[in-house]
């Protein structure tokens, strides 16, 4: 049962990532693309966690933490650049 649930979840996440890439390609403006990249970060964390469950290992959680932090900070930095033209004032 667990392996079937893992398959279903993995399929959903991969489809979500594909839709994010599509929005990244067609997004009419910069904030749309930024939103797509931000969602991709979150979905990538989900993918890593599911692969960790699949392989029954805990090694990947450090990578998940790093991706979460880098994703948040880079999104904030680009938004501040778009808003004020300056990241650190």
């Amino acid at each position, binding site marked *: 049962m*667990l392996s079937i649930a893992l398959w279903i*979840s993995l399929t*959903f996440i991969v489809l979500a*990532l594909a839709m994010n890439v599509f929005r990244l390609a067609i997004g009419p403006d910069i904030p749309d693309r930024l939103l797509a990249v931000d969602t991709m970060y979150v979905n990538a*964390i989900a993918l890593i966690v599911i692969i960790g469950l699949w392989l029954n290992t805990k090694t990947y959680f450090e990578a998940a933490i790093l991706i979460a932090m880098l994703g*948040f900070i880079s999104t904030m930095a680009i*938004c*501040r650049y778009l808003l004020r033209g300056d990241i650190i004032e």
Partner: protein
Amino acid sequence: MNLSFMIEALISVLLVLGGFFAFTGSLGMLMFKDFFMRLHGPTKGTTLGIGCVLIASMVYFTLYQQEPHFQELLITLFLFITAPVTGHILAKTGLHMHLKYITGTQGLQPELKDEDVGQSRVARPARPKRPGDIKARRKQLLKSRGR
């Protein structure tokens, strides 16, 4: 119906729900018509989806494998704190850049004041007069060129 079966069922349900919510969030981001509506999918759906997946992983390692593991709790908390902040600043950027929103949006025309953004602002596109105005102007331009 023993205990390990129950735990396995709980993990499976959480995993499938998490995947479904993440998928729904991304679908909303793909399907909706304007930027502010697209923002609703990822801030809610994807965040709860990843929360479900992380809790499933925590239950799996702690109860199913009998090895306590709580790093996921840290990631979950971090994501639940940062997702609204990201959504807020993305929406603010969208307002600042005068993104179009679909006709039929109720309420007043939102406008950022100067002090809301700060002193050294970036140049931004001017607000279009009405949604669909660009297309009309282009048609007029083509007509004036005699095509």
